[in-house]
């Protein structure tokens, strides 16, 4: 139960970070509050879009889905079920992989660091860590015979 609560809280934080970056991308947020020019550099680069959609929007949807699955998994009728844990681990792994790719782009292609993106990356890493830990405990994945 605890891991689903932790994921729900982290996903909500990530959701707001992604929502802010998406609002910026579609022109609703004015100037990006960043402290350095890194956020602007990253967010206005060609890599801030994926298949014609702002990357931040994928974050908004991804965190919202993680939050929804975690909350569904916290319903009394589903607390003992392992399915939500598996779904959370799958979603978190996909999100974590995307995070790794985006961080690579920031460091080695765009050569700029966006603090909000780093914040989102930390949140997603936290979600992934919790989800994988829960998966190991509930399913015995990776724990051997």
């Amino acid at each position, binding site marked *: 139960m605890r891991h689903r*609560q932790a994921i729900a809280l982290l996903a909500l934080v990530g959701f707001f970070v992604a929502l802010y970056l998406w609002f910026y991308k579609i*022109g609703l947020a004015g100037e990006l509050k960043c402290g350095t020019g890194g956020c602007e*550099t990253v967010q206005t680069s*060609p890599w801030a879009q994926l298949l014609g959609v702002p990357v931040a929007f994928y974050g908004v949807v991804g965190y919202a889905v993680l939050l929804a699955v975690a909350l569904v998994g916290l319903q009394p009728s589903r607390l003992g079920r392992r399915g939500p844990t598996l779904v959370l681990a799958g979603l978190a792994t996909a999100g974590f992989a995307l995070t790794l790719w985006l961080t690579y782009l920031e460091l080695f292609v765009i050569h700029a660091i966006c603090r909000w993106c780093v914040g989102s990356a930390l949140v997603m890493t936290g979600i992934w860590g919790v989800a994988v830990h829960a998966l190991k405990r509930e399913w015995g994945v990776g724990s051997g015979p």
Partner: protein
Amino acid sequence: MSRFYLALGGLAVAGAVVLFLLIRQPAGAARAARDAPVAVVDDDFRGYTLGSDAAPVEVTEYSDFECPFCASFAAVQMPTIKQQLIATGKARWRYRDFPLPSHQYSRFAAHAAQCAGEQGKFWEMHDQLFYNHSWAQTGKNPAGLFRDFARAAGVDPARYDACMDSGRYAARIEFSRQEGDQRLVDGTPTFFVNGERLRSTSYGSDVFKHIVDSLAARRK
């Protein structure tokens, strides 16, 4: 369990408040400078160019003066591109405005460059705006600074002021942006080489040199 939902609700409220504070626009920001004009007119202008009309390759750049990535490209990559490709007659460079909606002073800067262009100093103003890019980080109204840039670019200040006051190039800038939309430009800078969109993980001068050289070799 109820403590968890209390924490989640508190976090949701706090997040919404912080988000509201972050996106709140400062009062009195130069709205007129950043808003798109109502009427868009095609005046047959298709961007300032650098290089020979006889160059076998044309690169069209859709760019935004407030975009840091564009500034970095202009300051770091363009000098080499000018030297190796434009000055040698291998390529011609075309600049098109694509002001992003998230930028407060993009249109204003684009207009300043057009007003300098009116006096034959577009590229000088282009360099001023990109080489001294700290104006884009402050969020302050850059009108005075742009005037200094214009003067440094060799522009007559009185004519520049009259041009800026008239806003006569706002429709041209919007036309360029809409043209970018039609070509599915979704970020800046975006490049087209002989009409084909360039898709690369890097926009270094070496990438352009490789493409221009291979296109030129194909034409021989």
